[in-house]
């Protein structure tokens, strides 16, 4: 399998101007994403997990150029797309957008409340298939069926739908122009438990049928386990572990991954779960620790952890962890 999407050393820094009254202002920066590299192959799902503020959403938004990356390359189908977006050649940008789509976390906020579902679904066709407007209506009906809705729903407004149905519309919009890769940003987090399974099933089914690749971003590890073939774990803007899903979940090598997994309460009372409760909280991105970002909270930290930053090891292995003292 070839890599469809290759992210290489992606970084996003936000400058922070610390204003002071009588002294010169101090310029610092927040490293929201710091040198993240991973790849997603055709037909695969990479689950990107981490706690809030770890940079997983910024990573996704940088890939799509919703924010401009500060550094690094994003190769999609072999082409670095960062300079393309920066160059502003509309035809080339549209060609990328066609194959690379985004599904948002909040299915309510991501639909224009003043547009009918049909108008929302027509938008991508208007932009990408302007030559054949007569085919739009048929395609909209087809899309709605594909996500388990009915063609006549095209006449309705978002507020008439439940959360799960709205998320289906969001998926249909992303699929309208036959993308190869979908970036799914917490697509089920705002949904009720009983609806979550419906959307996960839909995603799995669409992947099998259309051969889509997913970058699945979530803090909900159980849905990640269900949908992903590979998992990448982020902490404070850095990738700390990446590997095949079962390896990560059964044999985590980074101490943070293990703590994260053990923090998820398993729905079986009295389950023999070795609970590791991390002490303290994630430090602010402005006061990032030196060395391994996790070392102040790590029970297995060595002196070296405070000094040098570990790299993802072993290089080029499928399962890699950035830890000086791996499990």
């Amino acid at each position, binding site marked *: 399998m070839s890599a469809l999407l290759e992210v290489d050393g992606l970084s996003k820094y936000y400058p922070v101007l610390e204003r002071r009254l009588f002294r010169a202002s101090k310029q610092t920066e927040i490293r929201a994403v710091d040198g993240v590299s991973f790849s997603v192959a055709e037909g695969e799902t990479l689950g990107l997990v981490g706690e809030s503020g770890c940079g997983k959403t910024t990573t996704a938004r940088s890939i799509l150029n919703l924010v401009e990356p500060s550094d690094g390359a994003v190769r999609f189908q072999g082409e670095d797309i960062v300079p393309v977006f920066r160059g502003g050649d509309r035809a080339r940008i549209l060609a990328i957008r066609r194959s690379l789509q985004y599904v948002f976390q909040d299915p309510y906020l991501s639909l224009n409340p003043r547009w009918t579902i049909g108008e929302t679904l027509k938008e991508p066709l208007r932009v990408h298939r302007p030559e054949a407007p007569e085919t739009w209506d048929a395609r909209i009906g087809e899309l709605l069926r594909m996500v388990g809705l009915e063609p006549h729903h095209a006449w309705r407004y978002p507020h008439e739908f439940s959360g799960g149905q709205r998320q289906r519309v969001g998926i249909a919009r992303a699929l309208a122009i036959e993308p190869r890769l979908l970036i799914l940003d917490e697509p089920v987090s705002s949904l009720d*438990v009983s609806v979550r399974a419906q959307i996960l099933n839909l995603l799995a089914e669409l992947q099998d049928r259309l051969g889509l690749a997913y970058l699945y971003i979530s803090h909900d590890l159980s849905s990640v386990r269900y949908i992903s073939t590979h998992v990448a774990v982020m902490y404070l803007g850095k990738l700390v572990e990446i590997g095949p899903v079962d390896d990560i979940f059964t044999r985590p090598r980074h101490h943070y991954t293990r703590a994260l997994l053990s*923090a998820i309460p398993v*729905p079986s009372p009295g389950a023999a779960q070795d*609970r590791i409760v991390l002490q303290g909280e994630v430090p602010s991105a402005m006061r990032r620790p030196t060395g391994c970002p996790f070392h102040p909270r790590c029970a297995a930290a060595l002196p070296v952890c405070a000094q040098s930053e570990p790299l993802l090891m072993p290089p080029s292995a499928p399962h890699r962890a950035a830890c000086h003292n791996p499990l």
Partner: protein
Amino acid sequence: MLSTLAPASSPPVVAAPAPLLQVRDLRVHFHTREGVVRAVDGVDYHVNPAETLGIVGESGSGKTVSSLATLRLVPPPARMAGGQILFEGQDLLAKKPAEMAALRGRRIAMIFQNPATSLNPIYSIGAQLGEILMWHEKASRAEADARVVELLGLVGISDPGARLRQFPHELSGGMKQRVGIARALLCNPSLVLADEPTTALDVTIQAQILELLADLQKRFRMSMVLVTHDMGVVARMASRITVMYAGRVCESADAATIFNAPRHPYTRALLESMPRIDHSYTGAARRPLPTIAGRPPNLLNPPPGCRFHDRCPEAAPECRRLLPLETPVGPGHTVSCLKRGSEGIAA
């Protein structure tokens, strides 16, 4: 006099204890322009001394409203439409407002879902916590401060003395929730209502808070009602569980029974539909998850009969007509389902 941190005085329970809190046929209705929303419509549950009861349900199941109703704090346009809430044998609904206020915060306390909005942004931590002690226990400022510092330390806040002068916006989400917990425990209550106490928090912080709550509950032998939508959280925390759906109770039992031998079709479906982190779904193992078709009913106009019948795989014609009542199916295990032998009433 200030109570000390010694465990509460109730003796260890041996045989079937009298429940500390007993809720009977509770009804809370929201009077909206569109009509009456039956948010809680005939709910029964009880909490024994020194145990944790988990109330699980999806959004709109009435779980939060029923816990607010225990304190008689349902927000307008909601109104208590009936039922009994017996706390230590006395009906709270029959109490005068002043008597009720004297119970709140002292005997029954509450932990809120969103730590960011449940602390007053313009008062320092010390001021808003101390005020409660000064009111309930007639403590002096200094006594109150000392007790607040003690409790902040107890809930795992470092340097509690300095925190007294801090404001909520200066604390992280996890810290704010710890303050919220300290506030609930100030007067050594015998019952704590925790409404989704960890939903707004990250998983590793959630683990910290859950551990803290479990520890405090054991230490002070208090009873706790833990309201949540997360089956994993109740599995970790609760000794007994009540499952709610659309304003009514489906099933109540001890935790092991709910997870290992659920009887109500909704409980079963809910458990099955969750992907689990301890299962592998790679390759051919990724089969479609069992789902619950449709969506929860609109409580403005709930379906007649069993509230779950239009999504239930086992629904029979009588389920459309008759509202099932809670029926015991085992020791400490009750189910409301006509197919499990519940009596039905035409409603």
